[in-house]
């Protein structure tokens, strides 16, 4: 299976994957999260488990079960870790532990390494079976750079029981008594959203959404959410339009967990009304290949977020060799080196200025797009992320043997 990535991912990542696979061959690696479908974690796990198995590792994936009350509580925990002032009562914590305890009994936790994804199943560590040598790793996908303190402190009381923790970005990590590894998220170059498309497939999507290709196209793919600043993108486009003819595509779906989503979409539609060169596309679920084609149709891709988690849509567009203009927030600066592999902006004016620069310098756009693709290949492909998980497990397994391993 790993052969599918030969010639796409860096050979060094595939070689290390093979080496670590040989070292850990036959061992059991259990992943636990809270949903089988939906969200980036499930997406990566669906791809990762068979890949790990193909390397000779006995990888499994379990999902915890809980009632509405449990998931309401974990949603609040999630929000609190992102900084919202949520209050988790003693009773809610008790229920959280109770559900984790029930899952610890139901699930087969026998494995050489257990990787827990996010806070929902994190409490399982309190009820783990006694198994000598078993390693428990906690993967936090959430931005915990400014967490609500009381919730964070409560979780910290048992997170220290893990053998190691994994964060996406260094700024998310906090002083703890266990090792904290930095493993950024990734995209799958073979998925519908990122695979190569033929010219016919791209043209079909342009026709489906009635997009003309006779002028440069600016594209932002993201849900209709104020933090993605769709109105700011339209204002930037209008500043550009005075000098350079172009079209704008805002594509996404309303955020299902955001009650403001519908209102934002209505505002965007109203603000864009009357301009035939602005296309507001409401994409249904499972539109991955359409998103892929839209990014490939773009002359310039925007991700003008005001607040962002990691912002993997940036890597998706960069992987297609597109120059991306991103807001200098969240994980976007980790993906874009300003002026080299894209542009970072802090205002609508900044976005407009960089769009004009790129539209007027096709050579610059090509150079930046090429550098952008190289950055993603080197840092943000799924093979690198799986490599890192195995490397963290291996380093934890042999942590008494230093920090330099020759394989």
């Amino acid at each position, binding site marked *: 299976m790993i052969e599918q990535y030969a010639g796409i991912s*860096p*050979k*060094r*990542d595939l*070689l*290390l994957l093979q*080496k670590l696979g*040989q*070292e850990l061959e036959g061992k059991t690696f259990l992943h636990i999260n809270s949903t089988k479908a939906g969200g980036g974690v499930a997406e990566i796990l669906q791809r990762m488990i068979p890949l790990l198995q193909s390397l000779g590792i006995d990888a499994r994936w379990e999902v915890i079960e809980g009632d509405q009350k449990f998931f309401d509580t974990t949603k609040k925990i999630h929000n609190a870790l992102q900084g919202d002032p949520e209050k988790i009562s003693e009773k809610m914590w008790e229920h959280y532990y109770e559900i984790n305890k029930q899952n610890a009994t139901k699930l087969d936790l026998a494995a050489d390494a257990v990787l827990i994804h996010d806070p929902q199943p994190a409490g399982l560590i309190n009820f783990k079976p006694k198994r000598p040598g078993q390693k428990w790793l906690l993967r936090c996908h959430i931005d915990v750079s400014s967490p609500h303190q009381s919730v964070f402190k409560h979780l910290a009381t048992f997170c220290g029981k893990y053998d190691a923790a994994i*964060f996406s970005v*260094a*700024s998310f*990590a*906090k*002083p*703890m008594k266990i*090792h*904290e*590894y*930095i*493993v950024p998220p990734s995209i799958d170059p073979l998925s519908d959203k990122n695979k190569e498309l033929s010219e016919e497939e791209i043209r079909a999507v342009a026709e489906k959404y009635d997009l003309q290709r006779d002028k440069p196209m600016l594209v932002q793919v993201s849900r209709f959410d104020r933090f993605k600043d769709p109105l700011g993108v339209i204002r930037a486009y209008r500043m550009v339009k005075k000098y350079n003819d172009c079209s704008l595509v805002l594509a996404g779906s309303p955020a299902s967990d955001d009650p403001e989503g519908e209102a934002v979409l209505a505002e965007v539609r109203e603000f864009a009304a009357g301009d035939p060169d602005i296309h507001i596309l409401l994409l249904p679920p499972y539109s991955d290949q359409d998103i892929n084609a839209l990014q490939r149709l773009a002359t310039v891709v925007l991700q003008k977020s005001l607040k962002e988690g990691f912002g993997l849509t940036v890597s998706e567009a960069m992987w297609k060799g597109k120059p991306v203009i991103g807001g200098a*927030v969240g994980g976007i600066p980790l993906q874009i*080196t300003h002026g*080299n592999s894209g542009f970072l902006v802090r205002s609508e004016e900044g976005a407009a200025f960089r769009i004009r620069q790129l539209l007027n310098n096709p050579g610059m756009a090509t150079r930046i797009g090429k550098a952008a693709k*190289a*950055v993603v290949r*080197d840092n943000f492909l799924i093979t690198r992320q799986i*490599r*890192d998980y195995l*490397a*963290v497990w291996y*380093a934890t397994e*042999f942590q008494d*043997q*230093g*920090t*330099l*391993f*020759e*394989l």
Partner: protein
Amino acid sequence: MTGRRRPAPGPSQARASAHHAQSRPVTPFPPDTPYLSGVKQKGYHGEGQGITTLETRMTQQIITAAKNTAFEFRDIVTIPRSTGQKAETLSELRDLIAEVSEDCIFYHTYGYFAKGHILEYTNDFAQWAGKGLEEGMLAEHLSIIDAFAFESVADLRAELLRVIDAYTANFPEPRPAMPGNQFYFKEAVTYVFPAGFRVMNLAELLMALKFVDMSSIYYHFYEARVRLGAGEDDFSKWVEEVVGGPEIAARIRAIDIFMHNLEGIRELLIRIIEEELTKMMEVLG
């Protein structure tokens, strides 16, 4: 090689003493790889002394050296680890530099060159002083520090502190870094493994250099200086000791390692070897 686990000393142990020529704890290659310190014992220097013309040297290279002198490329991968500590101000940076692990100092100085792209300065501390604190002069002072010139990480740490202290003695404390722009102290776990390329002569080295991963260039050109000390790198050492090309080795050693990114180093190595091979090809029989 597969299935063999050879735990190596941690960077702090290995690297802190790596510059002491008498006690190098880490060899450039594991004992069972073709090219290692055994070269001298097998008398390749002795054979090399008998080669006096470019023509015979060329013959040596094209026909290939003995099997056990092959240069095996290795890749290096580091997985960063947060220390959980961060600095917002210069004085916090200074105090944390004084107390963090040697692995952490190593990561932000020697490890800086593993980045594919070159930034304005030459280590993470200088980069942050320049971009995070906007203290250009301090960034320049920190940037001129040659990490590879120090006997140990402890000495390098002392120099970093000396430069910051000298600066703060003369200038007021700069404003704190903007939110989100703090300095995060990291260290790393490192994996070294064969890259799947083995070359026997200069022509093969030239070809391989065009294709090897950037991490191989970092390992053999930058990281090697910590392992071997005294401005040595794996390429010039192999070329000198095995191929018998002191001029080429000297040209490789003369590269200013601070002024190029890894791609630039690759291009320079290719250019040097190509030029030398061309010279050899043009020698009349």
